[in-house]
């Protein structure tokens, strides 16, 4: 059900973009105004969100991550899984952000009926598809820099030629555009095919996938089937950079679908689960060194502790203590 609702939503959005071809004013709206506003919403939205997170106190370190914490010198500790200092944390974050190390430990429950046994086995498909998708998307977006900047930096050209290494077709089919679509397809099928995953999937889960699939497929078709004049696209985008909003000439419906879905993605991002992108940097089980024993962590919302030392107590009851013949520390 959720899968269907989201599919209809994305389809309607795509059809909405098709109307852009009808008139010059609509071309301007869909080709320049909406992307501009959407990008502003994305930027401000993400910054506002993360700023809100930044205001939250970080009271205590979570020590229960997998791995032995640093304690006595003769107990071997696991610096990467339970780091005691900044270096370990940097290593753990690096592997988490770039290689999804936690997801690599993903397991699946298996019921072996004839043996009446439950089995937990490692499963890497989700990890592999997630890696393929995220890396492909990063590289695709990075390759898009050729539309945005002049001169095109050398690194972009190098990435392009590596990506087009197989030299299939004219223009060359990039490995990452295929991988992006295939991995998104797998991630979608995973939600639909497995009854358990399907049960816990919400419309928003599907929406993000359909949206990204729509973007990737429209981009792919635009490059390989219904060509658009990308020289004009770049010239128009260059205008945006100097805040001259113009829509490119000589582009068809696919271009408007692509750019409109990207705009929707931009607007959707700061209000949805896609915020895991900045969020992963703030995972408490990943970014805090487990130094609870070595360092004192004061909970910032604790009321100030008003102590009363023995010396102060003696001072307070000084006369009574003396009168009762009590032996004072002071004397």
């Amino acid at each position, binding site marked *: 059900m959720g899968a269907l609702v989201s599919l209809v939503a994305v389809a309607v959005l795509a059809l909405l973009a098709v109307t852009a071809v009808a008139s010059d004013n609509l071309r301007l709206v869909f080709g320049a105004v909406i992307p501009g506003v959407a990008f502003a919403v*994305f*930027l401000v939205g*993400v*910054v506002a969100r*993360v*700023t809100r*997170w*930044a*205001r*939250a*106190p*970080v*009271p205590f370190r979570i020590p229960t991550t997998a791995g032995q914490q640093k304690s006595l010198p003769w107990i071997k500790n696991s610096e990467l899984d339970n780091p005691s200092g900044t270096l370990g944390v940097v290593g753990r974050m690096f592997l988490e952000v770039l290689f999804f190390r936690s997801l690599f430990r993903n397991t699946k429950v298996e019921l072996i009926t004839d043996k009446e046994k439950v089995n937990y086995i490692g499963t890497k498909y989700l990890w592999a598809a997630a890696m393929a998708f995220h890396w492909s998307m990063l590289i695709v977006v990075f390759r898009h*820099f*050729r539309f*945005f*900047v*002049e*001169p*095109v*930096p050398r690194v*972009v*050209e190098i990435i*392009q*030629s590596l990506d087009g290494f197989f*030299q299939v*077709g*004219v*223009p060359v089919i990039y490995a990452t555009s295929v991988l992006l679509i295939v991995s998104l397809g797998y991630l979608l099928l995973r939600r639909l095919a497995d009854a358990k995953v399907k049960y816990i999937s919400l419309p928003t889960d599907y929406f993000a996938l359909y949206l990204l699939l729509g973007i990737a497929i429209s981009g792919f078709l635009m490059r390989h089937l219904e*060509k*658009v*004049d*990308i*020289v*004009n696209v*770049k*010239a128009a985008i*260059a205008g945006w*950079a100097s805040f001259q909003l113009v829509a490119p000439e*000589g582009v068809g419906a696919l271009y408007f679908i692509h750019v409109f879905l990207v705009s929707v993605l931009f607007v959707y991002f700061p209000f949805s689960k896609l915020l895991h992108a*900045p969020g992963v*940097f*703030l995972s408490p089980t990943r970014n805090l060194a487990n130094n609870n024993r070595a360092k004192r*962590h*004061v909970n*910032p919302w604790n009321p100030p502790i008003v102590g009363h030392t023995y010396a102060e107590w003696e001072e307070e009851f000084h006369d009574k203590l003396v009168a009762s013949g009590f032996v004072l520390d002071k004397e």
Partner: protein
Amino acid sequence: MYDAGKIIVGIVVFVVLATSPLWFNALTEATPEAPKLTLPTNGSTECVEATGYMRASHMDLLNQWREQVVRTGQRDYVSSSSGKVFDMSLSRTCMDCHSNKADFCDACHTYMAVSPYCWDCHVEPKGAN
């Protein structure tokens, strides 16, 4: 304890990266306008197909030509816009009219960071580059 300091550094990095095309273009001198093309000087006024189609889809045409010549040995192409007959050849037909490769093909391709590998084998017009 608050980690706001570190997070603000992260936010600044994000904003700089997300807006990088803007300041990249501001820092480089190059104008991001579309390149000026040098059109053929041999008196021809039309391309093989309509200009709009050529601009966006000339690689399709070339691919089609290549396939026709290499796979079927057929070398004559009848233009669907003018009805003229062309010899399907990259070096002899396209580059005959567009002899100024540097200010035509390359001008666009450099702008869009495209580097067709065709010239590994095919001959570029003399005096170009």
